[in-house]
Every structure is written in structure tokens, then in C-alpha cells.
């Protein structure tokens, strides 16, 4: 087992809408003020080993993007800490700032993650230039080198984002992150907005980068198929908490959390037998609002095997290699 690179310890992220002056006066006069805190990430701990790809799967609103941004040092956590090689990714202080360039991020929508008014050569080169990874004289060659790494010609540097297709833009966004020579790449749904044939090209690019550069990745996606293909280990997230974490094959073949099981059952599969009957076992009900998550286990409202204890007592992730956060985990083969 290789060394631990990124360590996430009891990270929580809450978003509280700022209280306006009017509301503050109202509160001061004795009126109850409704504070609607969103618990996007709720006491999450895990680690990423050097050189591995950790998949992070969950439905929309489960907090996976927020968790990715905390690890990438974009949002400071409300509690807990994220470290790389023992050093915090964000500084302390009233306005904490990102302290390291060793974690970079690739975003879902390549139409939004590239500044539309700036030539992509500058987009890729500005970070390395600002952090002294390359001198002013060599920046052109440096940018060309990273463009080549993602399969784009050197002339691309002189063009604007709108002159590229979606797949090409995502390549640019990956080059921008790689040019900082990071140890860890946080990829937030990097193929979700791409067409199937383009998606395959980008997945292959990630596989190639992994082989050639040995980057460690946190790969966030809602797409179970993509995550299975690319990840060594997978974490399943539900309503701000990680409910199951383990080696990819284990999770997909022998899920232990009822939510993981249900999620896997919900995915439409390619049906090629003419008389094959397509049946889903959809999860009952809907995702509860993260404004008022249910007490106890967050999944108990939709869980087929929920008991009285699940309604009051929040389970914790155990420490096994294939760990699960459930009072009544499924037995193998169930």
C-alpha cells in the first residue's frame, strides 16, 4: 500500500445565508430569525493515497462538488481540515487563502471554467508564470508542451475559448490544471457535459495522463459507469456524508450500504437481449432537502431495511478497507 497523500479529517462545510441589517434589527427587537443553514458536507473523513484515483459518487445536491472545492482549496471548511503531505491546503485567518499549488481542479463545464475574454495561452500560462514555474521567456514553449500533452496543437494558444468545441475546451482546462505541475487533480464531473464519443476521448486522456504523469486524482461524478472505469477506490456520498468507501470492484460487486445497492440498481443498462425484461428497482421517494436533513441516518426515510435505531442514531463509517456507514449493512451477495 502506498503512502497517504491527501488527508481529509472531519471536514464539514455549512453555508449560512448572510443575515441582512433588517433581519438583525428584527432579531434585536425580539423577532425570531430563521437561519437556514445548508449542511453541504457533514463531518467527512477519508484519505487519498499517492498515485491512486479515488472516485466520489453521489446524486445532485449530495455535497460532492463542495467537498471537491474544499480539498482544492477554493472554499475554506467550516470545521475540520484537509491536508496534503501533512500541510494544510488552506491558510488560517479571517479570510483563509489557498496555500499550495499542489492540488489543482478541473471543472464540469468547460464553457464556464475558461475566461471567455482571454486567449487560452494566457489562461494556461498565467498560473505557472505567477508561481515561478517558468520564466517569461520560456512561457510559450511551456504552454505548447502542455497543449501537446492534452493533444492540442501549439497554435491553439493564440485562440479564444469560443473557437473550440466542448471536448477541446475540456482539454484546455485540463492543460491549465496540469501546467501547475500538481500532485493531485480534483476533477468535478469533467465529462458530464460532453457527448458520448467526446467523453470517451477525455476519459482516455485521463487514463493516459495517469500512466504518464502518475497524478493522483479525486474523480467526482454522478455517472457510476465512468467512475467504475477510471477509479481504484470509490466513495459513495449521500446528503453530505460518505456512506460507503472501498475498492472499486468491491463496491460495484458487493455493495454493503442499501443506498449504494439502490443506486446501482437504478442505472439503466444497455439491453441487448430482445426478450430481456427491463426492470428497475427505483429508490422510493426523493432526496430530502439539505436544509433539514432527517435525524439519525440520512437515508432512513428511503431505506428498505431501516429500523427504529436508524431514525435516531447516525451510523459512522467503520475503519475497514471496505468501510460502510450503516447499522444494518447488507451481507455479501444480497
Amino acid at each position, binding site marked *: 500500500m502506498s503512502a497517504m497523500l491527501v488527508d481529509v479529517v472531519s471536514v464539514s462545510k455549512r453555508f449560512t445565508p448572510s443575515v441582512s441589517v433588517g433581519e438583525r434589527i428584527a432579531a434585536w427587537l425580539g423577532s425570531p430569525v430563521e437561519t437556514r443553514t445548508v449542511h453541504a458536507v457533514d463531518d467527512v473523513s477519508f484519505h487519498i493515497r499517492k498515485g491512486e484515483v479515488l472516485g466520489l459518487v453521489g446524486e445532485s445536491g449530495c455535497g460532492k462538488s463542495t467537498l471537491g472545492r474544499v480539498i482544492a482549496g477554493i472554499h475554506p471548511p467550516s470545521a475540520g481540515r484537509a491536508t496534503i503531505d501533512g500541510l494544510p491546503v488552506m491558510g488560517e485567518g479571517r479570510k483563509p487563502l489557498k496555500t499550495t499549488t499542489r492540488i489543482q481542479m478541473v471543472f464540469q463545464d468547460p464553457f464556464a471554467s475558461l475566461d471567455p475574454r482571454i486567449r487560452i495561452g494566457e489562461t494556461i500560462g498565467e*498560473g505557472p508564470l*505567477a508561481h515561478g514555474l517558468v520564466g517569461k521567456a520560456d512561457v510559450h514553449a511551456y504552454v505548447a508542451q502542455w497543449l501537446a500533452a492534452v493533444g492540442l496543437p501549439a497554435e491553439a494558444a493564440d485562440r479564444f475559448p469560443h473557437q473550440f468545441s466542448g471536448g477541446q475546451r475540456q482539454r484546455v482546462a485540463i492543460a491549465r490544471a496540469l501546467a501547475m505541475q500538481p500532485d493531485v487533480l480534483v476533477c468535478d464531473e469533467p465529462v458530464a457535459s460532453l457527448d458520448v464519443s467526446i467523453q470517451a476521448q477525455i476519459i482516455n486522456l485521463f487514463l493516459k495522463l495517469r500512466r504518464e504523469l502518475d497524478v493522483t486524482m479525486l474523480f467526482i461524478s454522478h455517472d457510476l459507469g465512468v467512475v467504475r472505469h477510471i477509479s481504484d477506490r470509490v466513495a459513495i456520498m449521500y446528503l453530505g456524508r460518505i456512506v460507503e468507501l472501498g475498492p472499486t470492484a468491491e463496491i460495484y460487486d458487493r455493495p454493503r450500504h442499501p443506498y449504494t445497492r439502490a443506486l446501482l440498481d437504478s442505472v439503466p443498462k444497455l439491453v441487448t437481449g430482445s426478450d430481456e425484461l427491463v426492470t428497475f428497482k427505483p429508490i422510493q421517494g426523493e432526496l430530502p432537502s439539505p436544509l433539514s436533513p432527517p435525524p439519525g441516518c440520512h437515508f432512513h426515510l428511503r431505506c428498505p431495511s431501516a429500523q427504529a435505531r436508524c431514525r435516531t442514531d447516525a451510523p459512522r463509517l467503520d475503519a475497514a478497507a471496505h468501510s460502510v456507514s450503516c447499522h444494518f449493512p447488507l451481507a455479501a451477495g444480497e
Partner: protein
Amino acid sequence: MSAPPVPVKALADTPFARFRDEFKTSPVAVAALGVVVLICFVALIAPLISPQNPYDLARLVLSDARRPPGYVGSGGFTHWLGTDAQGRDVLSAILYGLRISIQIGLIAGGIAFALGATLGAFAAYFGGRLEALIMRIIDLQLSFPAILLALVLAAVLGQGKWPLIAALVTAQYAYFARTAHGAASTERSKDYVDAALSTPLAASRVVFRHILPNCLPPLIVVATVQIANSIALEATLSFLGLGLPITEPSLGMLIANGFQYMLSGRYWISIYPGVALIVLIVAINLVGDQVRDQLNPRLKR
């Protein structure tokens, strides 16, 4: 609806070219822009084309004072728009007055733009208490009429070009700040700013290189309106005697000077500078309307 969602490569002309082509579809705006350019050009070359230097007191002859349009004065040339109470050629005075008005409007508008946009964008970028403080001050200021603020400041700072510009900037930067704050708050939440934060880049670079350039469209709209406003505001202050010194009359002061002769039938001293001022302001506003229609995404078809 996603039809037709095709990336059209051949359309890769610059945003400016697209803007220009669309601008051309409005004949009123094109005509107005022509008027603005013409006025600016005429004002620029005023010393070359005006028959007289109206600021050169030695050249003013008192016997030429208050003559009607068409009068041939002692200088040997025709006063096409008449003369004022000091014997100044009104046409020359208007040309020089336009020069001053446009100059002050542009300088004041430019400084207000830079100051307001920077304040608003930084407030949006940093958020928290700093944002609250800056934006409350700006809201407070916007609740006063600009003219009142400018009047007080002009009275306190005294006469002259720079005090006047300072007064105009103070009265107007808040509009830019609020617009920049709104646009920058939207940009702040976009992924490319998060990408810059994940690099990380310095705050000044994120604001000046990334956020502000993307806030330009609404700021340009405000700028066209505010330049017209600062010209009108300057004219108002000068009319009230709080603007430029009497030796360098701007349009407002020309109107004020002729005002007392209106009832005695010597209309030209006030009316012609007034007409020049109105034409300039209306033309800028017509251009501004078209720019706003084109840059406002809500009005896009």
C-alpha cells in the same frame, strides 16, 4: 431548447465586429453617433476653425457686444450667431465651450469609471464586511440627488477645472460602483474565477485581468449615460456660477450669461449654446440607448 446547438466555426468573427454590424441596423443610432463624432471633431479643432479666440480678452471689443446674428464686427468677420455681452463671437464661444464640456465630461466620467468599477469589483470579490461597508456607503450616496452633492462639493472646493472634476467624480462614481458590483458578483460565482482561486492567483490579477473585463458591457452602458450626465451636470454647475471661472466660459456659463438678455429680445446669447448642449446630450443618449439594447442580455432576441 437546444435547437440548433451547433458550434458554428465560420462565425468566429470578433465580438466587436458583431457589435458593429448590429449597431448599423439602427439608423437613428448611426445618425446620433455621427453627430457625436462631428461635435467632438469640431470641438477638437476649435482653435483652427473658430473665427475668434473667445478667451483672449484683448481681442474682445466692447462695441461689438450684444450684436444679433449676421453682424459684421470690428474684427472684419461675420458673427453668424451674434455676440454676447462682452463682445464675444457666440459661435466661437460655443466651439470652445463644447471643447471644455466634452473634456470635463470625459475626464470626470473616466475617473469615475475607473474608481467606481475598481471599488465595486473588489467589494464583490472580497465579500463580507468590506463589501457591506463599501456598498452601504454607495447606497447612501445614491440616495442623495447627484446635483446636490456636486453643488455642495463645488461650493466647498471652489472654482476651477480640477475642483469641478472632483465634484463630478464624487457625484457619479457610485453609479459605476453599483453596476460593477452587480456584474462582478455574477462573475465571482463562475467557474473560471474558482479556477483562478484553485491555481491560486493574486486577488489583484483575478479582479483586473479576469473579473473586470467580463463586467465591461454593463459598465460601458453606464459610461455612455454618465458622460452625458456629467456634461449636463457641469453645465448646471456653471450655469449656477459654481463651475469654471468666468474668463473661460463653458456652455452652462454662456447660457447663464445670456439669460438676463432673453427678455430684451437678445435670444441668441442663450439659445444657441443651449441648442448645442441639447444636441450633444441627446445624441450621446441615443447612442447609449442602442448600446444598452445591444449589450443587455435580457433584451437579446
